[in-house]
């Protein structure tokens, strides 16, 4: 097998030997040390065989004086293929240049990937790398990946950890952003304060940063009740006060009501009508009143009387003839459903204006009730979870109750 591989690399030729005394010629060649293989009789006076390049040149000297003729049928081997390229110098030079460029290019960084960006933008990381002379096109061995992480951390306080590694021609930067420090509620006060309940509710969680909690999870508290006290110690000798800091989450129950009726304001047809034509072309619509260029009513009910569409072609075209009914806002009686919808909309509006942005709605129930005067009252019962703590100055220090 190794011999076959070597012959394929070094090259060999397939020859045809014609003449008389072929066996004698073969014996002569073999005893001369010429390597011949795959000898096969192909005709009465014809033999094909394979011989190495050196062996072929040696055969030519043996042919003299013998009654045989040797000719080459085929040349094989890597050397043979490459020898054909010796006349294609531009191709060879091109291969050499491409190979050199590949080798040169593989020594530089061509891609920078940043992972873990959330608050810190990728552009900021790339800009920081640029100040460290690390950019696309930089040499790979000039990038100190072991130090790059530390320098990135030092460049931006939002980065808790950073690491870099080279993956071929790609520089992969991994970031771990720092957790944001919770902003404590502070009014810039210098006097001792406590946290009181701004609303009634049931405590779900208490986080005390400074001060002393006066309630526990599960306690029902009333508005004005002290939740976190700034009085750390109070006795006959002296009192120790602080500015209470913390977050008290509680479930709060809200009830919003709205009454409408028995009449409501809604758009009603005035009786005026108008015929218009609408033409659509490439998604644009042109509305005309009759064939005159007049603006249609802004608030109008449309009723198509004729429609034509040609959309299955290169030119999407629609045309329709519509009757417009003028509408105007008027106080009028309404159906039960209309009253209910109007009352609920009003109650929802009150709810959205009252609830704070940080309140998380846990449940919401709505219902309607008919009043004696024919009006409809809608009620919405909402349960939220929100921070009910409110910072206030300590009114007077008092002793500990526990």
């Amino acid at each position: 097998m190794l011999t076959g591989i070597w012959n394929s690399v070094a090259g060999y030729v397939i020859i045809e030997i014609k003449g008389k005394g072929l066996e004698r010629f073969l014996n002569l060649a073999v005893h001369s040390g010429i390597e011949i293989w795959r000898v096969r009789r192909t005709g009465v006076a014809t033999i094909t065989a394979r011989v190495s390049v050196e062996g072929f040149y040696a055969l030519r000297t043996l042919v003299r004086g013998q009654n045989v003729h040797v000719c080459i049928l085929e040349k094989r081997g890597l050397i043979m293929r490459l020898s054909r390229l010796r006349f294609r110098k531009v191709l060879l030079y091109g291969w050499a240049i491409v190979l050199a460029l590949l080798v040169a290019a593989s020594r530089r960084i061509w891609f920078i990937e940043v992972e873990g960006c959330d608050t810190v933008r990728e552009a900021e990381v790339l800009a920081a790398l640029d100040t460290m002379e690390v950019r696309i096109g930089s040499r790979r061995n000039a990038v100190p990946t072991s130090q790059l992480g530390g320098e990135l951390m030092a460049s931006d306080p939002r980065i808790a950890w950073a690491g870099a590694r080279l993956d071929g021609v790609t520089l992969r930067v991994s970031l771990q952003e720092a957790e944001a420090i919770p902003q404590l509620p502070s009014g810039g006060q210098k006097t001792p304060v406590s946290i009181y309940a701004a609303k009634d509710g049931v405590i779900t969680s208490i986080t005390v940063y400074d001060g002393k909690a006066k309630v526990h999870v599960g306690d029902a508290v009333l508005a004005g009740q002290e939740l976190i006290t700034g009085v750390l110690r109070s006795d006959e000798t002296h009192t120790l006060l602080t500015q209470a800091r913390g977050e008290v989450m509680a479930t709060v129950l809200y009830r919003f009501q709205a009454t409408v009726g028995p009449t409501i304001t809604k758009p009603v047809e005035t009786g005026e009508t108008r015929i218009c034509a609408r033409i659509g072309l490439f998604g644009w619509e042109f509305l005309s009143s009759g064939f005159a260029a007049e603006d249609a009513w802004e608030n109008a009910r449309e009723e198509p009387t004729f429609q034509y569409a040609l959309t299955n072609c290169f030119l999407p075209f629609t045309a329709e003839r519509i009757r417009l009914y003028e509408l105007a806002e008027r106080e009028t009686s309404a159906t039960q459903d209309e009253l209910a919808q109007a009352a609920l909309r009003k109650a929802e509006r009150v709810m959205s204006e009252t609830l704070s942005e940080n309140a998380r709605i846990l449940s919401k129930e709505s219902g309607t009730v008919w009043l004696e005067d024919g009006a409809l009252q809608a009620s919405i019962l909402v349960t939220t979870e929100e921070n009910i703590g409110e910072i206030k100055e300590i009114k007077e220090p008092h002793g500990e109750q526990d």
Partner: protein
Amino acid sequence: MSNKKRKIRLGRRVAEALDLPAEAVSGMPKLTLQGREAMLVENHKGLFECGENVVRLHTACGILRITGEGLTLLELSAERLYVAGKLCGAEYEP
């Protein structure tokens, strides 16, 4: 006894005593048959005939005739010959 025969017998005795392969000392042909597809002949003395259905070799024991179909000499050297094809038989010509 002629000197030549005496030398041959002496050589065989030496080979047997030293556990040397007999064909290496005596020059007798050694045939190694692989199934019915290939045969290795060692210690031949030259190619006598090479055809598609028959190959004849000079050996120390006479002319060796190998018959078959589609015979090809995969390897041909001064002392070794490797013939492949559909072998039918090998015999010494009288």
